[in-house]
Structure formats: structure tokens, C-alpha cells
């Protein structure tokens, strides 16, 4: 039966039929188009046709198939033709169709269904540092992470970091809770509280800061803290340097400043301490990346009381360079 349908005579016959039909339709189209063109042009005569034909790149349709335009050109007067076939007819308001937009009606979405979900809340957490820092005979564990929950503009933001030494002493415990508001393309402002909670005495601060992505893809944050003893500041920054798409070198630093020394917490006045790392991570998976690093912790206390009370510094000296490895993860 296939041979039947595909018999050359049959298909030729059919083709003939189709082409006849085609030609007929083209002819009627031409007639139709001509009259339509004409109708459309009436009432447009007083328009300024000066620069209406735009230099748009015209495709080159095959010569055989150009139904109505030729007839349009020959039948219609010049001026109207220009308007009808103009590439970009100018905006032509009238009394019936003004150029001003109509008032925006009050919309009722059926059953209050929003057609898209662009106002959702998201929860994300990033454990940037989760690492062991080593020197011979002495190891430290440090973590630093943040988590946020909320919409594009309003979020609840938590940051926490701390250091555990071989004697299970917890130091540098810094836990911050913010309301976070997106204010620009790349930056958020944050306001909240900071609690220094660890094995040492507890401190509480009010906190205000900014966090975001500086140009050239630097992740930065700057936060100011205040309580009845004075003010403090923290600057953080990091940069992801892609060696390959999965092997990433990240320099990172955190700097702390205080207006007053707090010997019990090992904090000195002025530029108190820095914690920095050069981490080389491999993103086996985007969300789980082991890393090796060199980390550096420096305390720049000028008073001996600071040194005495800072257990970590007492053991490790004011400048502490260590070999480190850890895992960066997020969800």
C-alpha cells in the first residue's frame, strides 16, 4: 500500500492540485491585500511621512513568493504606500485611541492565586570555616558560619564563630543576630545584637553593619558594635580566586578594633586582632568542599594584662601561623 500512495503519478497529481490551490490563494490574497492597504491608508494622509521608512535590514525573500507588496505599490498613491509598508509606523494617537495609558484597574486574582512565586522565603546556611589548625603538639578547632532566612528584601541573619583549644576552652565566641535588609544591587544593611559567649566573661553589644559583594567580586562586611563600655568594629573580606572551576584559592581576613581594652577577654585597644587564612578548596560538589590552608592569628595587645589573660596568646604567642585543613559546606 505504500507504493500506492507514493506512486509517482498520484503524487504528481496531488502536487498539481496543491499548486493550483496555492496560486488561487495567492491571487485572492493580492486582491485582498490591495484593498486592505487602501482602506488602511485613508485618514492617514495628513500625517508627516518625512522619515518614516526605517533603514531596517530587509530580508531577501525569494522572488517567487512576494504576494501583495508589488500590487500595493502599483495600485496605491505614493504617499499612502509609504505609510502602509513603512517598517516602523509612527505612534499615531487619536481621540478614540489616546497616547496616554488607561488607568490601571484594580485586579482580582482568582482565589488570590499569584501566577508566580517571586516572593518566597529561602533558608540558607554557609559554614565557611570548619577546620583544625595545627602546630606540632598543639591543635585548635575553629568554625565560622552564617545562616539567613527570609525574602529577597527582609531576612533574619545569624553569624557565629569560635575557637576551641586542646583544653576544651572556648574562646573568641562571637554570635550575632541581625535583621537584614537589601538596600542596593550588591549590599545589605544589618542591625541587631552581638553576644560574646564562650569560656570567658560574656559581653553584649548592639550591632550595625553592611555586608555584600564589592566590585571585582570581593565579599566584604563591616560592622560596628556598641555597648556601655565603648565601641568596636569588625572588617571582613574574602575573595574567590578560581584556579580551575573546582579548585579555588580563597584569601580571607577578619580584623577587630576596640575603643577600650577588655583584658578579661584578651582584647586590646585599637587594632586588637586579626584572623586570616589562605584556603585552597576543591569543590567535589558545590556544597561540600574540603580545603587545606595556612591560617594566621595575630593579637596586637600592648598591655601585659592582655597577654596574661588571653589563654590562647599565652600558649601560642601573639602571632600564630598554622597549617590547617577543613571543610566548607552550605545548603
Amino acid at each position, binding site marked *: 500500500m505504500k507504493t500506492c500512495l507514493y506512486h509517482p503519478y498520484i503524487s504528481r497529481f496531488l502536487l498539481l492540485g496543491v499548486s493550483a490551490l496555492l496560486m488561487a*490563494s495567492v491571487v485572492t490574497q493580492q486582491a485582498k491585500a490591495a484593498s486592505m492597504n487602501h482602506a488602511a491608508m485613508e485618514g492617514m494622509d495628513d500625517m508627516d511621512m518625512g522619515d518614516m521608512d526605517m533603514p531596517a535590514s530587509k530580508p531577501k*525573500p525569494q522572488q517567487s513568493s512576494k504576494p501583495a507588496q508589488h500590487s500595493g505599490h502599483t495600485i496605491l498613491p505614493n504617499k499612502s504606500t509609504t505609510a502602509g509598508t513603512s517598517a516602523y509606523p509612527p505612534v499615531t494617537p487619536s481621540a478614540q485611541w489616546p497616547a496616554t*495609558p488607561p488607568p490601571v484597574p484594580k485586579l482580582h486574582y482568582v482565589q488570590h492565586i499569584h501566577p508566580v512565586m517571586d516572593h518566597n522565603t529561602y533558608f540558607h546556611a554557609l559554614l565557611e570555616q570548619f577546620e583544625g589548625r595545627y602546630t606540632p603538639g598543639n591543635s585548635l578547632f575553629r568554625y565560622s558560619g552564617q545562616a539567613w532566612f527570609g525574602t529577597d528584601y527582609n531576612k533574619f541573619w545569624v553569624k557565629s564563630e569560635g575557637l576551641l583549644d586542646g583544653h576544651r576552652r572556648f574562646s573568641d565566641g562571637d554570635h550575632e543576630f541581625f535583621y537584614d535588609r537589601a538596600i542596593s*544591587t550588591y549590599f545589605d544593611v544589618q542591625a541587631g545584637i552581638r553576644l560574646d559567649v564562650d569560656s570567658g566573661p560574656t559581653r553584649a553589644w548592639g550591632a550595625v553593619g553592611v555586608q555584600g559583594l564589592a566590585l571585582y567580586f570581593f565579599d566584604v562586611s563591616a560592622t560596628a558594635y556598641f555597648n556601655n563600655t565603648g565601641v568596636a568594629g569588625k572588617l571582613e573580606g574574602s575573595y574567590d580566586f578560581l584556579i580551575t572551576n573546582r579548585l579555588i584559592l580563597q584569601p580571607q581576613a577578619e580584623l577587630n578594633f576596640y575603643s577600650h581594652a577588655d583584658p578579661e577577654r584578651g582584647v586590646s585597644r585599637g587594632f586588637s586582632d586579626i584572623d586570616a587564612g589562605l584556603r585552597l578548596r576543591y569543590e567535589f560538589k558545590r556544597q561540600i568542599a574540603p580545603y587545606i590552608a595556612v591560617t594566621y592569628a595575630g593579637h596586637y595587645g600592648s598591655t601585659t594584662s592582655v597577654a596574661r589573660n588571653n589563654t590562647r596568646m599565652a600558649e601560642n604567642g601573639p602571632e600564630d601561623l598554622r597549617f590547617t585543613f577543613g571543610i566548607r559546606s552550605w545548603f
Partner: protein
Amino acid sequence: MHIPPVLKGRNVSRRQFITGGSALAALYALKPPKQVFASTHTSGIVPQNASNTFDLTIGWANVNILDKPQRVPTMNGGVPGPILRWREGDDLRLNIHNTLDETTSIHWHGIRCPAHMDGVPGLSFAGIEPGARFTYRFPVKQSGTYWYHSHSNMQEAMGLYGAIVIDPKEPDPNSYDRDYVILLSDWSDVAPHTIINKLKFQDDYYNFRQRTAVSFFHDAKKSGVWPTLKDRMQWAGMNMSATDISDVSGIIYTYLMNGCAPAANWTGIFKPGERIRLRFINASAMTFYDIRIPGLQMDIIQADGNNVEPVRVDEFRIGVAETYDCIVQPQGDQAYTIFAQSEDRTGYARGTLAPHSGMSAPVPPMDERPVRTMVDMGMAMHGGHDMGGMKMHDMPMHSAPKAHAPPLNVENQNRAAMPINRLADPGDGLQNNGRRVLTYADLRATHPATDQRPPSREITLHLTGNMERYIWGFDGKKFSEAEPIPLRLDERVRFTLINDTMMEHPIHLHGLWSELENGNGLYNPIKHTIIVQPGGKLSYLVSADTPGLWAFHCHLLYHMDLGMFRTVVVS
């Protein structure tokens, strides 16, 4: 006995068939329709006859693409769903039964129907509740290739889509012997909400082709150390990435042709010398494809369901939700590969046209991946360095006033300082590739526009977004913060779109046609989805002839869902 899949000979018009063709009718009757229908989900074969009544079931099905069955919403149990063949002039009844445990909907993409039949939950329609039935009823007033998909809860991204073929009332001007639907889609075992969640944390989560220290040496070797460094600093100085082509890539996507992964090799059978109509539909969530059939030229005869003057090309790009019909006429007794590489070149969909099943042809290597330039940033005049032979015509007269420029804010990262007309530009990754590639400037309608009035006003919209926060929108606002766009009933307006982002956006207006102003005047091509290239500017005319609430959005699904959406109100 081998039954050739399609012996329809669609150069027989319906009328001929109905009135005179009793002999032909006998032939039709001889064919085993059951066999054909059983495989319509992935066969690409257009059903033999149009129908005006359909009983369709939406339900969960286990679909196994990557050797790990996934429970996804489907129509009649398949991905893609069945090909629906309609007839212009019919009154349709589509009975949908939702057996899912969540609300669903079907939107008829590109179909001009009453607003409450358009299938967007919230807009004149409540969606179809779990267990409920809903009957879509509307007259078919058009013909061509279209498609349908869910407009609910990311079901479309999971597999709830399929093709629509509408027979014209008038005889089809395009003759052909065979008719295949080539429906492209992007499949992932990762759930859409998970994908969005990752992108919200890290916008380049799925991009493993960023510029690195290692690639610096390659680039420096090619273009010199200083230019390479300068280029990289320029991009970094804007917090943008030149390698940002697709938000979601072949890392998690498998690109399907009629539901078949590349290895499964979807095959369409032909006889040498036959004219084959291929109806390409891009039903992907996030992927643009560049399509070619090595060894064959394609005559593009239809775009978005509307006939265009045939254009012979080697290759064309299809944006998400667009359709293109083409005719190919393979002469040789050999197989041909239909090759659809993703725009970012992280994968491809592939199938075969062959005289016998089981044959295949070589699969070409993917092209070099495109890299964004300053043209894409809308700074063509400043730093553009790869303009190729492309012509740049600034669209005069109705260019948007500077005052309209969108704000740089939380939701918008960039402002195209010098947007240009890119209609004659085949798009990033296709310029100067040695092949004849279709551009929007090539499209010319076969029929003049029915509404020939000039526009009475212009609506200018900037396509905006912030990759870092993964927020999308128009004019620096996402859907939930913006007013709807009001149109007067029967008004004719010009939409001018300026793309301030560095990605293509396929913009789809429901319910009304978009007549792309590409310089053909009354013969401007009529589309339902229009790609606006990055740094590009274009316009189209819309006749607001059907009242109601209509969705207007980017058809990259995650852009739409994260804000690049507006409600258009015609009243």
C-alpha cells in the same frame, strides 16, 4: 512487516480527503492506527486525524530518563504528553482530569482563546484542583504548530508539556510527504524548587566553565596578556561574568528530543526524495538550542504557528517556547543527524532522520561555547569587540527616552547604555560560524497583517535582573511589586523591549499576537514568543482584540517564577 510511520501524504488537503477521496479513505483505513497512537508520546508522529474532543488525564508517572525513575506530572502518562491534532474552525472540548494530589493547569501556548480558557491559575481561572475535572472549550481560529504546558507549580519543568498541530482550514501552502513533531526539552532529576534554591544561593552554581587562572593562559596565548587581563578586569569591575550563558546547564540537564535522550536516538523514517515537515518546538524550561541537520538545508516555512516566506538556512536558534516548522528533502539513502546543541554548549539533543530504523549518522562535535561581549552589556559603541559582520541599526524615532532608564537597585544590576537592534544578528555563538543561520530579520509573513492601523501608543519595558540575588523583572521590579499593564480593548500598541541583562529572554504574551517589527511592514512576522537578545532592543505591535487578564513573561521558567512577569489587562 515494517509499517512506515506516516503515510498520510499531507499534500492531500482535508477537503479533498473528505469529499472525493474515497480511495484514499480506504488507504487510510488500512493503516493500523493503534500502533501509531500507542507510540505518539515519543514517536513525533502527528496523529492521523484531527479531533475536536479530547479526554486527557494529568497524573503522576514514573519516567526513567537517567536510569533512575522520577515521579513527575504527565499528561496521559508520557513525557512529552500526546500530540494533539486540531482543526481550524472546530469547536474544541478538552476534558482534563487531574489525578495529581496538587492543583494543575494546562496553558495552550500561542492559542488565541478566551482568557478563562488560557489556563493560567489566578488570571480568570482557578486552576484544576486535585481530583477535579475541567473542560476547556473554545473555537480554533488559527492553524500551525503550537504546544501546551502546565502553568502550575513548576510542573512544566518536570515534564507536563506536549505538542499541538492544527490543520489549516485553507489548503496548506506547504506541501510535504511526512510530518514529524520534534519537541525539545531539558530533563533533570533535580527538582525545580531545588534548582531555584541553589541559584538563589549561588547564581553560577551550574556553570563550571567560568574563566579561571588556567583559562587565562589559554586566552592570553590567543589574544595577548594585556587584552585578556583588561577584558577580565572589565567584567569583574561590573560584577558580571562573560561566561554567563545559561543559568542551568548540561551539568544537570539531559536534552531530550521527543522525550528521547541523545543515546536513545529518536529516529524519523523517510524515503529518499520525500519532503519532510519538521515541527520544532522548544518545550524546555531554561535552554535555547541551535539546530542543524548536517548535510541538509532547511526551508523555514513557519514561525510560532504562522507561515513565513520560505527561508533556506543551515541552522537556526530556537528560544524557549518558540516553534519553527521547516521542510527538508533528503535525497540520499543515508541517515542524517538532527543536532540541537544547547546555547551554552554543555550538551545537545539529538535524533536521526533515516531511511530505515536503526541507522545513524555521525554526531558533529559541539561548537565553541559563546562568550558574552560588551555588545551583550548594551555597550556596543564603547567596548564591543566582536561585532563580526553584523549590521547595527539603531531603531530610530521611537527609541525610549533616557528618562525611562530603569534604576540600578536591588533588583537590577545593569543598564544598557547603548542598546542596539540585533534582529539581523543570529545570536551569541552563531555569528560568523560559516553557516547560513536564520535571524529574526529573515522572517517575513506570507499574509499581510489583519490589523493595519499604526500603533496609538508605545509601551517601553526594560528587561532587568540581578544575577547575584537571582531576581528578575521588568523596569527593575519583579511581578509582586509592579502594577499590571493596562490595554484598552481593540487598542493597537507598540511594545518596545530593551534588554538590560546579559542573557536572552524569550518574552511571551498570552492571548494576543506579537507582530515583530523587523522592517517588513504589513508583512512583519507574527509571533507569540520573541527573543530579546542581550543589549538588544526591538519592538512589536499588539492588537488588544481579546479582553481579559493575560500573562506576559519571560519563558525561561526560573526567570518567570522569580519575577519577570506582568499581568496585561485588556478592558
